[in-house]
């Protein structure tokens, strides 16, 4: 397992949003898709700990608040496009608990709920070079799969040397998602102003520990 690394950020983006960044961690892909009992117990424990009152107070907590502010700064409405921790909270209330959906998704959920920092996972071998943030140029495809969504010009994207992989705070392209043949995972977090580096790293380590 590597240590968390900072991705690159395009100069025009850094000049406007200086604290926006991407932090990555590479680790071996877990074997087996189903979560072991310990992970499911952890989800159950989080479900008990996380109640309606917590969901209400969520946006007052520093890290969810920082993501809400960043959403506003980049033109997303956090009351329409929910910040990941709020989306998880709503799902928890609707489903009555954090439902296990396989080891990788569960690990991402646990890290998100424990720290408030959202993470995404990619197939490390599908990524060319370090990840970074930049503005998309006109008509760039998100990922290599046929029928992939096209990024609009000026959209902030997570990209590698080949091109955009995901819109900022959006789901990665199907061509880069981990599959049964994945041997190495690349976890990445988007860090924003107001979120200490320690919390971003904590999220990555938590996820890595669950994937163990």
């Amino acid at each position, binding site marked *: 397992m590597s240590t968390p690394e900072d991705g690159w950020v395009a100069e*025009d*983006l850094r*000049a*406007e*949003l200086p604290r926006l960044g991407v932090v990555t961690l590479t680790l071996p892909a877990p074997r087996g898709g189903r979560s072991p009992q310990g992970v499911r117990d952890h989800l159950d424990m989080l479900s008990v700990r996380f109640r309606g009152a917590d969901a*209400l*107070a969520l*946006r*007052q907590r520093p890290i969810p*608040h920082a993501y*809400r*502010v960043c*959403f*506003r*700064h*980049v*033109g*997303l*409405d956090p*009351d*329409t*496009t929910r910040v990941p921790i709020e989306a998880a909270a709503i799902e928890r209330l609707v489903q009555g608990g954090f439902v296990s959906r396989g080891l990788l998704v569960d690990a991402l959920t646990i890290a998100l709920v424990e720290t408030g920092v959202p993470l995404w996972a990619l197939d490390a071998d599908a990524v060319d070079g370090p990840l970074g943030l930049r*503005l998309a140029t006109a008509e760039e495809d998100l990922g290599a799969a046929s029928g992939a969504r096209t990024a*609009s010009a*000026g*959209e*902030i994207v997570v990209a590698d040397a080949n091109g955009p992989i995901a*819109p*900022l*705070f*959006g789901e990665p392209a199907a061509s880069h998602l981990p599959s049964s043949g994945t041997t190495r995972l690349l976890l990445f977090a988007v860090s924003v102003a107001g979120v200490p580096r320690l919390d971003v790293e904590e999220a990555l380590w938590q996820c890595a520990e669950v994937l163990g």
Partner: protein
Amino acid sequence: MTVSALADRLPVPVAYDERAARRTLRAQIARLERELAALAPEVSPRDGIRWSIGSEAGPRLLGLGELERIRDDLAERLHEIRETLAARAAREAEQRALLERMLRDPARHRFVRVGAADVGEPGCGVWHVRPRLGLIGMLAGWWHVKLSSGCPLSRVVA
């Protein structure tokens, strides 16, 4: 005084720093978002408050005009929410005063009802001024306040 001498005395035009203006707007948006977040726990679904202000087709870098629109919309939304909460607080205070008067003098408030929700209390209880012993109490002027407890039982919808 010559024209050139006058021109020397005029203030030199300062280059307008748009980036600094955008930074200021982002700081204002962050402050408004914090103030909105502080109000969230006080809002009840019955207030019918709409939080969303619409998006700017992000994620992307926003220009001065777009940031201004977000700042203005957030400020307007904050104002609306504060007004809604203030109006509700005034309504609840009125209802609490009415409830106090009902409890002090039930006979002067015959058949008046005040719900728990009307005074900002949780639950479905209702304070209702009713006659003691039905018709006898009504004729004798024996009035009292009854608090019905609990929410109605759920019923199967046909």
